[in-house]
């Protein structure tokens, strides 16, 4: 028994209409006999059987459209020698991949000799516009694209070029425009540091709190008591801010200083302050700061001790109205009661915009700061 199928007569033939059967069921057919007429796009063509046999069944009605390969009839063979049907060697269809890539494209780009950064032309242009040094953005082996440059901040090299100039301009303006007053006080840090040591014993290494975080926390809480120092001076008026975003002065790898904001520090407890500070420093060094962190500082805390000077009288970053300076913690003589002892002592200074606040406000702030640091458990 074999099936007679609609033959393919050409590569672009998908189907044909069976117009007329030339045989009836029961007819004997010989090889080469015309079995039907089919209508194709090129006209009516006769189709033939390829074997001897008896027409067992005609499966399709006349005037039916049939796909190439579909069964049209059954032919019963009668013990004649028919060509041995050898099963075709089963080979997978050759898959011609449409996107077969020219091998020359697959070749990896040549390794870069020397200092050249891999960056797209668009990225290069953006970096130049933003005053960013590509070197600081480049990750090993990967190409820099436009979006990466756009989402990055001015970095070290940037400091010394575009940003440095911007800061210079701002500082000049600041000194020219802002009437500064300066206050300073010495703070006994021994209790706070001692307390911190104990607290850290309760924490894992990753959770340890650094003195810097403690100090920032203290400043933030002090600002809650003295909010006049947290805000902007614009259009001849003070605009105080509810959110406290202290700009933290962070030293960068090559020369330079940057003061990104710890956003919404007022919502953080001590642990959160520590974690946020850590994250901020990391991202600063990686050049991955957010725009708001660069622009939304409400006050700046500078010289968090590790640079070395004991006290700093800085210049306020306009439009902020205050600058807190915290000196290096040193062992210094301290009077307790009548006795002289050695304590960890830190100089805290405040620069204030005299248009926004006066010395009394400033003093109040420093007083609160000192007070908090003497009762560090309140900083948690």
């Amino acid at each position, binding site marked *: 028994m074999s099936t007679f199928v609609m033959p*393919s*007569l050409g590569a672009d033939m998908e189907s044909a209409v069976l117009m007329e059967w030339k045989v009836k069921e029961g007819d004997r057919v010989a090889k080469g006999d015309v079995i039907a007429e089919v209508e*194709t796009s090129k*006209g009516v*063509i006769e189709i033939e059987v*390829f074997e001897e046999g008896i027409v067992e069944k005609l499966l399709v009605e006349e005037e039916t459209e049939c796909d190439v390969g579909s069964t049209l009839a059954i032919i019963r063979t009668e013990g004649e020698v028919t*060509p041995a049907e050898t099963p075709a060697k089963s080979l997978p269809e*050759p898959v011609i991949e449409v996107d077969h890539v020219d091998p020359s494209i697959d070749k990896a780009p040549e390794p870069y000799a020397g200092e050249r950064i891999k960056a797209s032309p668009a990225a290069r242009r953006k970096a130049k516009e933003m005053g960013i040094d590509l070197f600081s953005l480049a990750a090993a082996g990967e190409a820099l694209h436009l979006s990466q440059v756009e989402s990055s901040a001015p970095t070290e090299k940037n400091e010394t070029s575009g940003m440095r100039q911007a800061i210079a301009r701002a500082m000049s303006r600041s000194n020219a425009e802002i009437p500064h007053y300066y206050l300073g006080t010495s703070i006994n840090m021994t209790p706070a540091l001692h307390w911190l040591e104990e607290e850290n014993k309760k924490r894992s290494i990753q959770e340890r709190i650094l003195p810097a975080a403690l100090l920032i926390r203290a400043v933030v809480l002090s600002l809650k008591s003295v909010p006049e120092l947290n805000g902007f001076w614009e259009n001849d008026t003070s605009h105080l801010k509810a959110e406290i975003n202290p700009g933290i002065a962070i030293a960068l790898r090559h020369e330079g200083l940057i003061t990104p904001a710890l956003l919404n520090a007022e919502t953080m407890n001590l642990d959160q302050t520590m974690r946020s500070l850590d994250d901020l420093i990391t991202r600063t060094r990686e050049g991955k700061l957010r725009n708001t962190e660069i622009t939304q500082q409400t006050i700046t805390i500078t010289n968090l001790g590790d640079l070395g000077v004991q006290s700093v009288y800085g210049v306020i970053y306009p439009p902020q109205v205050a600058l807190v300076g915290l000196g290096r913690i040193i062992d210094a003589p301290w009077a307790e009661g009548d006795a002289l002892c050695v304590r960890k002592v830190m100089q805290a200074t405040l620069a204030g915009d005299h248009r926004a606040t006066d010395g009394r406000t400033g003093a109040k702030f420093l007083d609160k700061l000192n007070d908090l640091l003497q009762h560090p458990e309140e900083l948690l």
Partner: protein
Amino acid sequence: MKTDIEKANQFYRDMLLIRRFEEKCVEMYSREKIRGFLHLYIGEEAVGVGVMHALSPEDAVLATYREHGQALARGIDPKRIMAEMYGKMEGCSRGRGGSMHLFDGLARFYGGSAIVAGALPLAVGMALADKMMKRNRITVCFFGDGAVAEGEFHESMNLAALWHLPILFVCENNRYAMGTALEFSHSETNLAKKAASYCIEAYQVDGMDVEAVAKAANTAVHEIRAGNGPVFIECLTYRFRAHSMFDAELYRSKSEVEEWKKRDPLLLLYQKYPNIDIDKYENEIALIINEAITFAENGTLEPVEELEKFVYTQEAIL
């Protein structure tokens, strides 16, 4: 020296091989085993067989896309031809050519051209090379009535005659250039006359009579080897099937085909030599063809990784 009867048997067997091979191709094409274009030699067997019998192994053959007959008559293994049509690596062109581009170095068979008249200039060059190197070889070029309208035909006739080249031009005039009849293609339908106008020896011969073709070919080959320049033989023949598989034959009548079938070359030869043992040859050939199918079915597909080979002789530099 073969007797007429021996030769006739040989002719019959060779023509029958072509006939059955082509019929099997129809079946396999309908079953989508063979793809692309399929141009059948059914009805024209006498031309290929008659001419090939006049040639020596050192002669070269150039054919058209309707070349299975010439390829078989030239002695190329039917297994390798079928495998080629199946697109397998074991095919004579490694599966790269298909039905229209059969090549075989040992048989000195140079295709297989899909461009009508495209091989005529090649024949001129091959014959030129033989002449320059003083080799006693003939180049045979098969082409159809359609080719005679192409510029390349005229350019090649001119050069062949001008340079006195050892070429046998065999024009298979089957009266149709695809769907266009002779009288719609040529102002002068006597094609031998056209060749003669280039000062080439030109003959017309009954293309359905294998003995007539063989005789004409022998004479021609003899002339050419004697250094008398090219010869043109116009074989008046007919294809019983359509131009290719996908052709409704709207351009000719069924009755015309039936008339010509009465002069089927196998029939004519058998009528002249009724003692030919047809059954013996049928059986022999059936086995050969079965073998060819099995060989082709079991063949290998060339790995896709090798796609870009055979662009240049050494490694593809691309």
